[in-house]
């Protein structure tokens, strides 16, 4: 009788396995090394790019946070500032009548030539000033006369007194002192006349013109008549109002939609359809939302143009899918045992979700919401289409006032004619926006860490 041969021949002995492994080991290690070095190279390349970007922006933008200013003793000469008494509301006077009188008084102050105060003061430090009156008027940037006016409007008691003030110099003087223009160029290519250059040299040697921290960059709205005073306050407030609208609209709506879809909605064709479309919405280019906003909110609802309320509505639409998706994935990650335990103890579904699931989901929801808001904060494209790239020289007082936004302000400054001055200003605006973004992201991380629970 023949012995049945084993079905599988033991061709692989322990020795051959060892051989095979040994033979392939070098190749497999090499593959791993290649993959690791690719990964490392990718990380290094992206870090290098970010570093180049940051070095570029910071080297250009940081100097713009300091701006040349001239220290002058301004005498509020009663002969120049010759105005009637500031109106005070009488006991029996209506608010409207008082406002009328106040505006009339302010108009009277508006006719005062505050430039005289500045040039009079300059004449004291520049002996040959009288012969070059036109050059003299160009040393201090033109917007500073309104600063002097506002001081008088605030406190008319200042008339007759002398105050030492730091006034911003003309943008071209700042450019000259910072070396942003080639000083060896012939006169015809320079922005400053030879006389002004001589004065600037003299004043900075005397220490009267100095580089000072630029509060104007943060306190003023945009300006075109006085370029040196152009600031970010208007754009910042515009962005702030828009973010408020986004937080009030997109976050609660998105969270409510996500809770419904995740916890309550029946699984059927309709909810599938909604889900697919929310994901599609997240992929819609932002400029499309801008077109929608222009035609629906401005065209139909007659909301004002260039207003943060419209910008906020448009950005809310854009942020909504981000918030919904983030909230849903957070809710999904909460262990079902939490719900089951609550339901098992007799809680209603609503109680189980609001008392037990949602508190655990809060860090995730907050992270999603903050990242959505940060994304909305940096968005410029849709805002261009709803009139927010207009030149607005005032700080908005409500979401219905015309305004710009930080990313749009960057776009506008990038397009300003006086390149030598605004290249640095643009980078400074970018730094401010980046700082805001980084602090929002840091807040998101901190909140997540603070409320995080582990199972």
């Amino acid at each position: 009788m023949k012995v049945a041969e084993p079905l599988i021949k033991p061709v692989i002995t322990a020795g051959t396995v060892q051989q095979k492994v040994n033979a392939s080991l070098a190749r497999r290690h090499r593959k791993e090394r290649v993959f690791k070095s690719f990964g490392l190279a990718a990380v290094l390349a992206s870090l290098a790019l970010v570093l180049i970007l940051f070095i570029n922006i910071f080297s250009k933008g940081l100097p713009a946070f300091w701006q040349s200013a001239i220290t002058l003793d301004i005498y509020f000469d009663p002969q120049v500032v010759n105005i009637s008494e500031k109106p005070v509301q009488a006991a029996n006077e209506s608010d409207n009548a008082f406002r009328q009188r106040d505006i009339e008084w302010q108009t009277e102050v508006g006719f005062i030539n505050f430039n005289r105060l500045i040039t009079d003061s300059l004449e004291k430090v520049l002996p040959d000033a009288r012969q070059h009156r036109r050059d003299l008027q160009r040393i201090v940037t033109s917007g500073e006369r309104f600063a002097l006016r506002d001081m008088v409007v605030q406190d008319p008691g200042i008339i007759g007194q002398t105050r030492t003030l730091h006034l911003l110099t003309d943008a071209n003087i700042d450019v000259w002192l910072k070396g942003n223009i080639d000083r060896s160029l012939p006169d015809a290519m320079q922005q400053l006349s030879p006389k002004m250059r001589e004065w600037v040299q003299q004043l900075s040697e005397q220490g009267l013109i100095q580089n000072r921290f630029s509060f104007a960059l943060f306190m003023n709205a945009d300006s075109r008549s006085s370029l040196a005073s152009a600031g970010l306050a208007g754009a910042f407030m515009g962005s702030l109002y828009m973010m408020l609208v986004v937080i009030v609209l997109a976050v609660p709506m998105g969270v409510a939609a996500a809770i419904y879809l995740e916890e309550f909605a029946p699984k059927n064709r309709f909810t599938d359809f909604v889900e697919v479309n929310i994901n599609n919405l997240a992929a819609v280019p932002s400029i499309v939302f801008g077109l929608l906003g222009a035609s629906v909110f401005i065209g139909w609802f007659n909301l004002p143009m260039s207003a943060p309320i419209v910008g906020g509505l448009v950005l809310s639409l854009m942020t909504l899918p981000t918030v919904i998706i983030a909230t849903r994935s957070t809710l999904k990650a909460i262990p079902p045992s939490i719900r089951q335990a609550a339901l098992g103890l007799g809680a209603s579904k609503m109680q189980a979700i609001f008392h037990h699931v949602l508190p655990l989901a809060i860090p995730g929801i907050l992270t999603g919401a903050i990242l959505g808001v940060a994304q909305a904060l940096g968005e410029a494209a849709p805002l261009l289409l709803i009139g927010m790239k207009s030149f607005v020289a005032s700080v908005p007082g409500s979401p219905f006032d015309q305004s710009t936004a930080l990313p749009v302000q960057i776009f506008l400054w990038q397009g300003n004619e006086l390149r030598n001055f605004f290249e640095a200003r643009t980078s400074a605006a970018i730094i401010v926006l980046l700082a805001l973004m980084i602090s929002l992201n840091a807040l998101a991380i901190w909140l997540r860490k603070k409320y995080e629970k582990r199972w």
Partner: protein
Amino acid sequence: MLCSRLLLAIMLVTAIISAQVKAQTRFRDTIQIAGSSTMLPFVSIAAEEFGYSFAQFRVPVVGSGGSAGGLRQFCQGVGSHTIDIANTSRPMRPAELAACKANGVEQILEVTLGYDAIVFASRIDAAAFNLTPGQIFLAQAAQVPSAKGMVANPYKRWSDIDSSLPEQQIVLAIPGTNHGTREIYEEDIVLPGCQAMPAVQQLEPEAQLNFCSAIRKDGRVIEIAGDYTETLARLDAQHDAVGVFGVSFYQANRDRIKVAAISGVLPATETILAGEYPLTRPLYFYVKLAHVGLTPGLLEFSRYLASDAVSGENSPLQDAGLIVLTPELRQEMLQRIIRQQSL
């Protein structure tokens, strides 16, 4: 607990916002302006000074988007969601006027603010140019006349066109069709340069126009849809490029770009004012008279903008590069505003 407080806060904020919406049903209290990017710096300066000088009015808001874009917004209709003033660097076309009237914008005040010159400029480190309209046409045309009839544009260097020109690659950055500047470029440069050629004069008038306005498509002519900074960026990127700019932009960047003479005349304040420099054009603003009395300060701002103190001799706008009107013309414009004379 946290959730109910959150809900309460949200309801409160929503209530405040909806109350605000109700308050907004009155007409807007800020003048809204849009249009030509050439006019933008001038009108912005005036708007800012106006708002800061008169306590009862707010600073008007000035948008850009080109002459055509501004007029399109202007002609959308009457109401607080439409703009009050459109700035243009060319007169309104009959078709645009018809569109305005069709949308109920019947009463339109046209005011000339001043003049602007357009310049051809190259990088400061590039060669100096002295161009004629004919040479510019030959540099940018799709087809050019030759001994063998009309042939596809063969010129690669400026020196191929005329030996007096620098031996530099032809790259021309011209304004896109959304800009009013483009129209002046075509009417004052391309057409005269083209129609002066004997071979073109033999064509039918319509064929002439078609022939002259065709632009070469081999990448040597770049149409810039954005602002002049985009043209400047193009010059920064391409050493050989020659760009079209407004004279005020050139003046603010004299250290970076160098202007070309046109038919031997350099654009300087004297030559422009004397009318020797050929490429000047009037700048306009259009006021929607139906909004007078609704938008506070509309007529006052128009008068302020056209006044001698703001846009006349030694005014802030002249400092910014505007070429000012003659005193007689200014008087006429101010009269137009006071009488609210419609087109």
